[in-house]
């Protein structure tokens, strides 16, 4: 099964990338070796987001993320796992779980 792993972090508390980058690199390496990693990336701050709605054929753009919240989507992974237990086991090892929150959602298939 495929799972989208969404990393939510508090953007008002800037991360120390010199410290966390090696942790994420190590994590990505282990995911790849286990055959779990399918895709993943860090996102730029939610202030760079644009939200679009089309109503009555009119495109409405909003400068900012879909929902204003303290914790914002900061990155994602796509996992291939046998079941939820395996996905949760790997997601729990994500460095971001130490300071943010990680949501695990199965892909519809």
């Amino acid at each position, binding site marked *: *099964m495929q*799972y989208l792993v969404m990393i939510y972090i508090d953007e008002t508390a800037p991360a120390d990338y010199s410290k966390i980058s090696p942790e994420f690199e190590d994590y990505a390496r282990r995911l790849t070796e286990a055959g779990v990693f399918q895709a993943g990336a860090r996102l730029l701050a939610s202030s760079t987001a644009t939200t679009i709605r089309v109503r009555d054929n009119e495109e409405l753009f909003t400068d900012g993320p879909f929902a204003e919240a303290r914790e914002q989507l900061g990155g994602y992974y796509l996992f291939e*796992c*046998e*079941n*939820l*237990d395996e*996905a*949760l086991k790997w997601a729990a090892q994500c460095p971001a779980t130490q300071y943010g929150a990680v949501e*695990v*959602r*199965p892909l519809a298939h």
Partner: protein
Amino acid sequence: MSTDPLAAVFRAEHGRVLARLISLLGDFDLAEEALADAYATAAGKWRADGVPDHPAAWLVTTARNRAIDRIRGARRLDAHLADLAEQPAPPPVEGPVLDDRLRLFFTCCHPALDRQAQVALILRCLGGLSSEEVARLFLVRESTVQQRIVRAKRKIRGAGIPFRVPGSDELSHRLPAVLAVIYLLFTEGYAATSGPDLIKNSLCDEAIRLARVLYELLPERPVAALLALLLLTDARRAARVDASGRLVPLEEQDRTLWNRAQLDEGRRLVIGSAGPYAVQAAIAAVHADARTPEETDWPQIVHLYAMLAPSPMVELNRAIAVAMATGPDAGLRLLDHVRLDSHLLPAARADLLRRAGRVPEAVAAYEKALELVGNQVEREYLERRLGELTSS
């Protein structure tokens, strides 16, 4: 619960049969639907021919065949289920059924499900209770229970929650949730937080039944501790409420009404137990050892409370034990540091103030407790105590 003998057989076999079917079919809903079909068939056949020697085996075979009929009928696209329908029918199971209930315990109590869903699932799937019965026990609408179960099963299927017993490396992380659900069922049965009755007997019985099954399947020390705690606590049930339904506090209970067989069994289990419930079970065992309230080894109970992880409830109970061991003033000083948003805190304070002879303060504390209490039987107990103080 139903008194129909067939319904009693169904209920006794439900968890084992459902667990086996989920394992064979790999699908929660299909297993439940097929089992309902098998019950309907059995109801006619067993009434005519009598209950077979191995009712569980009969139900598994019949339900599996019904499931295959359903898969063929619905032309399910699911590859796994389609394969199953193509296989030749297996020979009927005649002996005891392979026990898959342990997997069902862990799936029902999976940490990715919320606690209310876990509770509803375990009662429905392993306890064999109907949604209506679950709803009655928790004083919620039947539709609420059904929604919780539907949502939980959708998540089990959709999110890929596996039907398995966690490996030995994970068991210590996963077992506490299973134990917590059973303990929650028991505590809700033993001291109902709402409603007219203090004790919901059927919920206590169900929790003990589930704990027994779990211990039989997984004879580990933390499970022994939980079963011991439930047995030792429940043994006092008959003495806890008098004939008119009034609450009887521990020191006023008729100890000859305590269930000796259950106390003995609990005491034996405590010896080989460990984990978070073991200390509570040991405390219950100390109470069980005392033939009169005066014989209670309160210093030992104080010592045991100190071994529990601190929480407001633990601090409250420790303060009461200290009061009983060394006098109400020492207990009251400890209660000053307890922060708990419940009637239990002013009720404990009131009781200790009463013992210390500080009547006006005790009256005020009983009044405070009465503002917060939710259970009718507990309310009447507090009113009675308050009445005794104000009339003398």
